[in-house]
């Protein structure tokens, strides 16, 4: 009865930004990114990629509530890189990996179909 419409899981409403961030006042180089209308699919991947970055001290994500469709990604870095740099670097690395994966899959498909 009170459940939100199903399309709310992926349609960002007017006025809200897709990604917003809040710096942590008490800890240096720490912030929380709020990504609207996303879930574990992207959250777990971004967290995994952030763990691989040597400049990142802490990275984690959570869904504050299963009926509120957003994720919170919390990142602490050493002074070496800024927070948005670390976040964007992780996602760009992911993009490169996915493109390589797609190309590898298409090549393998062609090879398989020629057999």
């Amino acid at each position: 009865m009170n459940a939100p419409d199903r399309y709310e899981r992926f349609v960002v409403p007017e006025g809200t930004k897709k990604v917003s961030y809040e710096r942590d006042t008490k800890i240096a180089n720490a912030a929380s990114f709020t990504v609207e209308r996303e879930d574990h699919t992207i959250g777990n991947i971004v967290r995994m990629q952030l763990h691989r970055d040597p400049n990142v001290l802490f990275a984690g994500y959570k869904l504050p509530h299963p009926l509120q469709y957003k994720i919170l990604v919390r990142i602490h870095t050493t002074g070496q890189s800024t927070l948005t740099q670390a976040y964007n670097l992780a996602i760009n690395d992911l993009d490169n990996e996915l493109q390589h994966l797609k190309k590898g899959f298409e090549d393998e498909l062609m090879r398989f179909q020629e057999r």
Partner: protein
Amino acid sequence: MSWKSSELDDLPKGLPEHLEIQRTRVICKNDAPIHTEGIQYSGAYASSGVDNTISFEKFSKDFKIEVIRLTEDEMEFDMVGIDASIANAFRRILIAEVPTMAIEKVFVVDNTSPIADESLAHRLGLIPINADPRLFEYLSENDVPNERNTIVYRMQVSCSKNSPQRLTVKSDKLEWLPEGSKLHEMVPGQQKTFTSFTNNQMEITKTPLGVKHEDITIARLGPGQAIELEAHAVKGIGKTHAKWSPVATAWYRMLPEVIFRKEIKGEEAVELVKKCPVKVFDIEDLANGEKKAVVARPRSCTLCRECIRGNTEEEIELRRVRDHFIFTIESASALPPEALFTEAVKILEEKCDRVLSELS
């Protein structure tokens, strides 16, 4: 004279064996698996002098895909070198975010069948439609249904009064209307037409858009009962409703490894081969007439743990390779499974781009 451990020649390089197993394998013990977390941090083994960074070059070198089986509806392939989170993301996207066409609106003119209108509409929605969703656009609330975003089907069945038995209505009774809705002929009223098709839909799709399986039972009619309705199919994703899921299912498992810690010979070996329900083990006859158990087909291991129950618990170790995934995709839509996976990769790339922070 250099004392760095990486430069001394007679010291073993890399991690000690037990740590290497912890890093790359999940060990499945009798009650629960251990070492399930992947270690991503690049400095994890810094004190041993081993670098754990996973750079893009290392990823491209280690990454491998191998297609094992490919039929019209099903595909099994191996992906080596990716992390569990990416494998899971593909599984989630294949199930819930690859778009498909499915019947959404059903306009019922006549329904005297024993199936209620809404149950009939529910059943019609779940029927897979043989239409490539990449040729269509999404239909939003303010849009007019036209040939770019709607597929129109009509069903008109009746069972004659003199019929000795019930008539089973199968999905082949859904006929495709490439020219648009004909409801205005069936229902005289003010509304000119329910859809505004400007061209024949065949020009867009080139092939007829029927249903994928023609033998799905929709309803059964007794004598004198009839169904007359028009159904409009639109594009959607599985997140909104499961009828738009393009796969019957998609799943992955990690590559199993079965290791003998001690040799198993003789009677025990024969018993072990009998215990395994998927025939992972085989008997090898040794030169002196003894029988030894060997692992013949580790890939078919389903982790039922029959082989480590009882007295053989210490002798066999069941492991999974942490970065080797065996994917299986069963397609239930117009697209073949390899096209579905390519769409899933594209969707994940788009998601990553949308999630990039514009604040920098």
